[in-house]
C-alpha cells in the first residue's frame, strides 16, 4: 500500500482510538481533579461497562438499552464504592490508592467468577463497510468515534454550563472555600466518582462490538488513561482531551506505519519527557 492511503488508515485508526481513550481518561481526570484521588480501579469500570453491555444485549437483544444500562450500573457500583469505602477512609490519597487496588481485584475477580474467563462478542448495532479505493474500513468504528465525540462535548458543556458542573469546578479549585459557599462537597465527590466511572463504562460499552468483552480488558484502558492524564496535566480536563488526541493519533500512526510496540514506547517516552521537562503536564496547574 502506498504512503497516502497508508496514512489515511493510520489517521482513521488513530482518531477512533483517541476519542474512546479521551472518554475513558476524562473520567479518570474528573475523579482526580475533583477528589484529588487516584482511582486505580478505573479500568475495571471500563471492563464492567463492556461486560454489562454483553449481558444486557444478549438477554434483551437491544444494544441501545445496553449502552444506557452500562454507565448506570457501573456508576451505581462506583457510588456504592464511594459511600462504603472511600468516604470511610476520608479520601486520604495513599489509603485510596490501596483501597482502589482492592476494588480493582474485587471487580475483576467478581467478573471472572460470574461471567467467566471468555472473550465474548457483541454484534455491532449498525454494521456497514466503508470502502475506500485502497482498503475498507469498519463503519461502526466511525460511528463509535462520532458518539464518543458527542459524549465528550456533552460532558464539557455540562461541566461549564450546569450548576453541578459549577460545584465540581469549585470543589476542584478549593474544597474548603467551596464548602464555605455551601457547595455540598461530599455529594459532589460521590457524583464525580459515579460520573467518572460511568464515562469509562460508556467507553467500554462503545468498544465492545469492536473488541469483545473480557475480564482483563481494563488493564490497557487504565494504563493508557494514566498516560493521558499525566501527559495532559493532572486534573486538567482540557489537557486530558488534548493529550488523548495526541496519544491516540500517535499510537494509530506509529503502529500502522511502524509497529504497535514502537507506538507504546513512544507514548511512554512522551510521558517521561513531559515529566522531566514540564512536571505538571501540558496543561497542569502550577503546584499549589
Amino acid at each position, binding site marked *: 500500500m502506498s504512503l497516502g492511503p497508508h496514512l489515511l488508515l493510520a489517521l482513521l485508526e488513530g482518531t477512533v482510538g483517541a476519542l474512546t481513550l479521551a472518554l475513558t481518561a476524562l473520567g479518570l481526570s474528573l475523579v482526580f481533579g475533583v477528589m484529588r484521588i487516584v482511582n486505580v480501579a478505573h479500568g475495571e469500570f471500563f471492563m464492567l461497562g463492556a461486560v454489562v453491555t454483553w449481558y444486557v444485549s444478549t438477554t434483551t437483544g437491544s444494544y441501545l438499552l445496553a449502552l444506557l444500562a452500562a454507565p448506570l450500573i457501573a456508576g451505581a457500583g462506583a457510588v456504592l464504592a464511594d459511600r462504603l469505602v472511600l468516604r470511610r477512609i476520608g479520601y486520604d490519597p495513599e489509603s485510596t490508592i490501596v483501597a482502589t487496588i482492592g476494588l480493582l481485584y474485587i471487580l475483576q475477580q467478581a467478573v471472572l467468577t460470574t461471567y467467566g474467563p*471468555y472473550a465474548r462478542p457483541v454484534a455491532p448495532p449498525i454494521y456497514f463497510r466503508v470502502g475506500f479505493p485502497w482498503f475498507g474500513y*469498519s463503519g461502526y468504528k466511525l460511528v463509535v468515534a462520532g458518539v464518543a465525540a458527542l459524549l465528550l462535548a456533552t460532558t464539557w458543556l455540562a461541566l461549564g454550563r450546569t450548576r453541578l458542573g459549577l460545584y465540581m469546578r469549585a470543589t476542584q479549585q478549593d474544597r474548603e472555600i467551596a464548602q464555605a459557599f455551601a457547595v455540598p462537597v461530599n455529594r459532589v465527590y460521590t457524583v464525580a466518582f459515579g460520573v467518572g466511572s460511568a464515562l469509562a463504562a460508556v467507553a467500554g460499552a462503545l468498544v465492545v462490538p469492536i*473488541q*469483545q468483552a473480557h475480564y482483563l480488558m481494563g488493564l490497557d484502558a487504565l494504563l493508557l488513561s494514566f498516560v493521558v492524564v499525566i501527559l495532559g496535566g493532572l486534573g486538567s480536563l482540557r489537557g486530558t482531551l488534548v493529550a488523548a488526541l495526541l496519544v491516540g493519533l500517535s499510537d494509530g500512526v506509529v*503502529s500502522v506505519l511502524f509497529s504497535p510496540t514502537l507506538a507504546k514506547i513512544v507514548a511512554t517516552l512522551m510521558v517521561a519527557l513531559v515529566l522531566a521537562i514540564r512536571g505538571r503536564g501540558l496543561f497542569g496547574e502550577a503546584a499549589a
Partner: protein
Amino acid sequence: MSDSRPTSSAPKISRRTLLRASGALALGASATGPWVRRAAAQAPPLRLGFQVHRTGIGAAYGRWYDRTTAAAVKLINEKGGIGGRPVEIIAEDDGTDPKRGAEVVEKFASQHKVDFIFGTLFSHVVIASAPRAGELKIPYLVVSEGYHVASGSLNRYVFQPGITDVRAQITAVGGWILKNLGKKVTLIFPDYAFGHDHRDFFSKVAAAQGGTVRALIPIPPTETSFTKYFPRVPADTEVLYHVMVGPGVLTFAREMGEHFGSKRPQIFGFIDSVEAVDIASPGLEFLEGTYFWEAFPRYATPNMPAHVRLYRDRVGINDSGASVTDPKDVSTASHMFGCWETLFVIKQAVEQSGYKKPGSDYKAFIETLEGLQSFPEGIEHPQGPKRFGGRIHQVFGQQVISKVEKRQLQVVHRTAIEDSMYEPEADYTKQPL
C-alpha cells in the same frame, strides 16, 4: 498411597461384600453396574494429574479439554479402567500461565502424588512446565500441537502421543496450499513459540516447493485490534496464511474482512483461529469461501464411521460441533480429541508395561511407550490412524482441509499420514532415565 494398600486389604473384603449385596439389589436397574463397582472397589485408582487451562487465554480450550477428558475417563472406567484400576482425574488450573504451569506440575508430583500428568495445551506453558516434569522424573503427556516435543528441546519424560505437531500439520497442508491456492504467501501469526513454528516451517515448505513468502507479520499475543497490521500485506499476495489464537480472533477475522472486502487474496487459516467460535457468528461472513486446516472435522460428515459418531455423542457435541446442551457453546474439535486419544495411549502403555506405581515403574512405562509404533483408527483413536515416532515422542496422523461453505466447514481434502512425516531431528531414547 503406596503404604495404604496392604493395611486396607482387610476392610476392603467387607466393602466388597457390601457392594456385592448392593449390586444385587441394583441388578434389576443395570446389568453392568455391580461389575464396575466391584472393579472400582478392588483396586486403588490410577491417578492422573490433569493440567488444564481453566482461566486465561486458553480458557475455551480448557473447558472442552475438561469435557473430553471426563467423557474418555467415563468410557475407560465403564470398560474396567486401566489395568483393572479405575481412573481418577485430579484437575488443576494453570491459568494458561507459564509460571503457574510449572507450579502445577510440582503440586501434582509432590502433593497429589499422581501417576502421570497430562493435558497441557498452550506452548509457552508446556515449555515452562516440561523441564520441571523432567526434574521430578514424572511422565508428562501434553496435548499441545507445538513442535517443542518433536524438536528434542524438552526431555525424556515429555510425550505427545495424542495430537500431531505443527510441523507435521504444515508439512502436510503446505504443498496443497501452494498447488491449489497460490505461490506468493503472506503469513500472519502470533509472536510466540506456536506462531514461530508456523513461520519457520511454512517458510521451509515454501522454499522447497517453489513458493515465496512475501511478508511475515507477527502479532503480539495480547493484541486486541488488527486493522493496523493489514496494510503490511503486500498487494501481490496470492494467499494470506493466518493462524491467530486468543480472545481477539473474532475481531481479527472481522477486521480482515473489513480491510479486504471482495478484493481479497485466497485465505488459508488454521482452525486455531476460530476454535470455540461459531463460523456463523456476526462479522465472520467474510470467511465464506476461505480454507481451514482442521485435525478433526468440526461438522459431522455424511459418511462418518460409527466410532466417530460414538465419540461425538460421548463428548456431547452435535452435528455442528457445538455442545448438545448449548448450541452456542462451540467446541474445540480439532484439539480436544487429543485428550481422548492420549488417555487411551496411557491405558495401552500402562497395560503393556505392567505399570503399578510411580517411581520405579516409570522406566518400563516410558520404554513401552517409546516402543509403540502405530495406533489403529477406532473408538480409542477417533481422529484417524496414527503412527508413533518413539524416538521423538511424537505422533503422526492425517490432516484435513476444509472450506467454509454456507457458513459451515466442509471437508475438501484429507492428507495421508506420509504427507506429514519429516526427518526426525532428535532422539530422546538416548537420554538417561
